[in-house]
């Protein structure tokens, strides 16, 4: 057989890599796609999405970190599992995954669903939206997630605390996939709390997108040191908004909810993102959805008062009025991806070398080019991540600049300052490396200490993977996956900084569906050192 003619064109889009920052970045956990960060067997496999991650450097040993991930895990309810269903957890889709091995890899040693929290006689089950924050100073981790009542239609945000000692204790937290009892023994040394519960009988507000952060200063070093802050979106036509709660570190004694957004946009205030500055000020970014397709990116600074007292917050300032936001139209998706994406803002604060100035960096995703075949069913042809910075406490912001100007889509940004070096890390999904601009790689750009210029992209994963290859996501290929997670920390010594990124991938293995093996969606983990 001699092939004579074929009209085929290929377009190759190489991912630029390499940077000249603190130290040469090195990928640790498999350059292609990181490593599967769960223990799910390949039978009855279901998706994991909406990842979060944090870690304590060198907690296991030199260069061996204690890593805690979170994800929405369909195993919680067996949702999406073809019959016969596999393991169904205790009703919790708030998955946790822990790496505590001395082996330098990204493997999880145990996992499970965050345990139920009982409050005022009501049992609240984990409902996803897991956010993770490490507290190296007090050697602990915090997990915030969405909660719903097991018997009533109540909803809330849950907050749990676990010490590193417990996570390293193979009796309290044995290896493997935790049963409900093992999940409780692992996480309930400090009783979990529910925040801002809605009363039963009527759903009066929708809570979503919890964000958790710890004031990592030494206990007693200042007002609020060690306090834990949780922010979330509370959609309510009358009294909703971005809600902030302060809790004590050891006992999770929490303040009353404080609404920090001050407008009532048509479609609500969305997706709070929390940080604590080195001096203890709390910073929040969130998005107001206005008339389509316009969003306003807001920034708020709050002064700590010492939990359980609520902080005192400034009026929100405007980072940017985004006129080409994502996520307004029904079925608003990215071309080729069939994934509904909403503009979301994340930020990071960096203390400058003068010891006083703090620069805040905000990143968000937007639609650079919209395809308006049917206005209410718009498709974005080219999503991009942009960045804006402020060095005056959020009063003024620089003009947004693209983090990556390559073709294809860049979306789901996350940003984290490596306090040890002052390096700001930005990650995002990037379809540019794929010939069809459909499959997703994870890319990272760094901003060097003292600079506000975004560096060249670095490949966190080099093999673009299709988000929608998991058959449990079809034929409903319009997916819902709103973010992934990343955290950067280090010791301040070149080569000893780490960036852990936890993201959705179908690349690492195939699972068994029916009589065949097909790609399966997992929360993966990648480590980058620099």
């Amino acid at each position, binding site marked *: 057989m001699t092939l004579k*003619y074929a009209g085929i064109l290929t*377009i190759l889009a190489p991912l630029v890599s390499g940077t000249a920052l603190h130290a040469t970045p090195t990928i640790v956990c498999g350059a292609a796609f990181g490593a599967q960060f769960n223990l799910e067997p390949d039978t009855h496999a279901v998706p994991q999405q909406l990842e979060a991650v944090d870690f304590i450097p060198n907690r296991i040993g030199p260069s061996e970190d204690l890593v805690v991930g979170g994800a929405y895990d369909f195993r919680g309810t067996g949702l999406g599992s073809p019959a016969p269903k596999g393991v169904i957890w205790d009703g919790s889709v708030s998955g946790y995954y822990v790496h505590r091995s001395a082996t330098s890899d990204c493997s999880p040693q145990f996992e499970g669903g965050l345990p139920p929290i009982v409050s005022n006689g009501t049992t609240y089950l984990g409902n996803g939206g897991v956010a993770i924050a490490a507290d190296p100073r007090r050697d602990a981790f915090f997990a915030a997630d969405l909660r719903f009542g097991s018997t009533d239609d109540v909803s809330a945000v849950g907050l749990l605390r676990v010490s590193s000692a417990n996570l390293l204790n193979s009796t309290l937290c044995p290896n493997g996939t935790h049963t409900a009892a093992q999940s409780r023994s692992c996480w309930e040394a400090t009783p979990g709390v529910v925040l801002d519960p809605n009363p039963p009988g009527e759903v009066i507000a929708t809570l979503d997108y919890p964000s958790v952060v710890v004031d990592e200063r030494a206990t007693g070093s200042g007002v609020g040191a060690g306090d834990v802050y949780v922010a979330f979106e509370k959609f309510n036509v009358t009294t909703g908004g971005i809600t902030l709660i302060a809790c004590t570190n050891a006992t999770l004694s929490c303040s009353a909810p404080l609404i920090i957004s001050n407008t009532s946009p048509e479609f609500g205030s969305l997706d709070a993102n929390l940080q604590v500055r080195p001096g203890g000020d709390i910073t929040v970014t969130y998005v107001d959805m206005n008339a389509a397709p316009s969003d306003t990116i807001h920034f708020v600074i709050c002064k700590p008062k010492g939990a359980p007292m609520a902080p005192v917050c400034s009026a929100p300032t405007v980072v940017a009025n985004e006129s080409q936001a994502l996520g307004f139209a*029904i079925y608003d998706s990215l071309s080729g991806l069939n994934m509904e994406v909403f503009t979301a803002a994340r930020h990071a604060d960096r203390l400058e070398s003068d010891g006083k100035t703090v620069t805040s960096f905000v990143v968000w995703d937007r639609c650079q080019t919209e395809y308006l075949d049917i206005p209410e069913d718009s498709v974005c042809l080219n999503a991009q991540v942009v960045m804006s910075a402020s060095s005056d406490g959020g009063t003024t912001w620089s003009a947004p600049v693209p983090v990556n100007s390559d073709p294809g889509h860049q979306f789901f940004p996350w940003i984290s300052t490596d306090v040890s070096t002052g390096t700001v890390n930005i990650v995002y999904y990037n379809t540019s490396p794929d010939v069809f601009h459909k499959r997703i790689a994870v890319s990272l750009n760094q901003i060097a200490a003292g600079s506000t210029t975004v560096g060249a992209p670095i490949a966190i994963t080099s093999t673009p993977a299709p988000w929608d290859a998991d058959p449990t996501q079809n034929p409903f290929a319009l997916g819902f996956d709103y973010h992934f997670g990343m955290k950067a920390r280090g010791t301040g010594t070149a080569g000893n900084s780490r960036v852990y990124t936890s993201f959705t991938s179908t690349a690492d293995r195939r699972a068994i569906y029916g009589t065949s093996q097909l790609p399966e969606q997992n929360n993966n983990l990648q480590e980058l050192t620099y």
Partner: protein
Amino acid sequence: MNPLPQNTESVAFLPNRVSPGVDLVVGAGNDQRTSIGGFDAYYVHRRGSTCGVDFEGAVSSAAMNPTVVADPARDAFFLSDIFLSLSQIVEVARTTSTNLLSSTACPSGTQLNGANPNCWPVVGTADFTNPSVKQAALLDSYIAVDPRTSGTGAGDVYVVAHYENSTNFPAVASAEIIACTNLALDCGSAIVVSGADTFGSYPYVQVRADGLITISYWNYTQPFGTQPNTIDVKFVTCTPQGAPKAPTCSTPILVATSDLPSLFAPGDSGFRDFLFPKHAHRLEADGTFTTFLVYDRCRSIIGSPSVAAPVCSKIDVVFTFSTDSGATWSALEAVESGAGHQFFGTIQDDTSTETINIAYYSTQDDIFLQRPKIRLRQIAPGSTVLTTASILTAVSTDPDAGVQNLIEPGGEGVINFGDRIGLAAAGTGTAGQSEVYVHYTWNNVFGTFVGTSQPDQNNTLLSAAY
């Protein structure tokens, strides 16, 4: 600039008709460009040694799912398509190679509908209308030509279609046939070929070298809408009576049974595949015929089979053969044993060498089992065993990526990748002088949409010699 999708292809050719080594190739496919005036179009290659298109156009406005066939004995081509109206009419057009090679009758470039009627000068209609039925639809037409030059029915053109009577629930359907004369396209009345079957669907027609008309189709064994609903793949032979007289047909014979739905989505992709049996005949050295039949088969459904497009864990192209005019059939055999999905299987006999060609998409070379290449397997003369597969495309395509996704409502995950590809095989009888053409859907050429570069779904042609 702002290109639109093409898919659902067909292809036919006359070897060396342009000049030695240059074939006259006619393709057809659904084409969403409004500039052409219809939903389907033809594409003609008549010069040079590439697969380039020299001119293209539409026979009429508002028709779809075209089929094109060559008639070497009369140096002609036929094209059929279904009107996009509520009528149950298949449009049939005829042209000659002389016309297609004439730059006066068929100027190069894109021909708007009606601007050049000399290119396809004979247009007839195969009218499947049944006045006694209040509400009906015509679907999935196909066309074939009797290749003979003598005998009853020689040169006659046959049109088959799926006639669905939806007056009552559950709807009933039948596979039907109309015979048309070759030169004038004088078409007769429709007759049912699916016997007592209550939902004859996706008919496919061929004519053997001895004039016997053969039709394959499938039928629900339970009333339409029943779940589960076993499907019977069936085969019918018809004797020509001389068009426009309808042929006389045998009772349908069972080829194979499927307990899975007729429509399914590949497990990790957003488009849909259909059970669409197709067959080809090979004349053996002793004058008997072997009939080979292929169709796409879902091995198992993930989740509920009752949803609109159930998810299939593995799609195979399967084939079977019969050496007794369809009375008995061999056990089904998968064309590929590897992983991934094989789909849109199609089959043609190269009568010059009596080589059977089976073309299909296969995702087996993609690590995510989503992106297919075009593969071809052959069955040598006298054999019923598949040869090793040839991979005809160096790279793969992504059915879910591109413009066709954008123009689906909201890009909601239901991708239109068409439901078939075209295949034609012919030669001189000398080894190395046979050609196979595959006309298929491919998204690898990017178009410009609102200033951005996006994969654009195109009908694409390749040829291979053997």
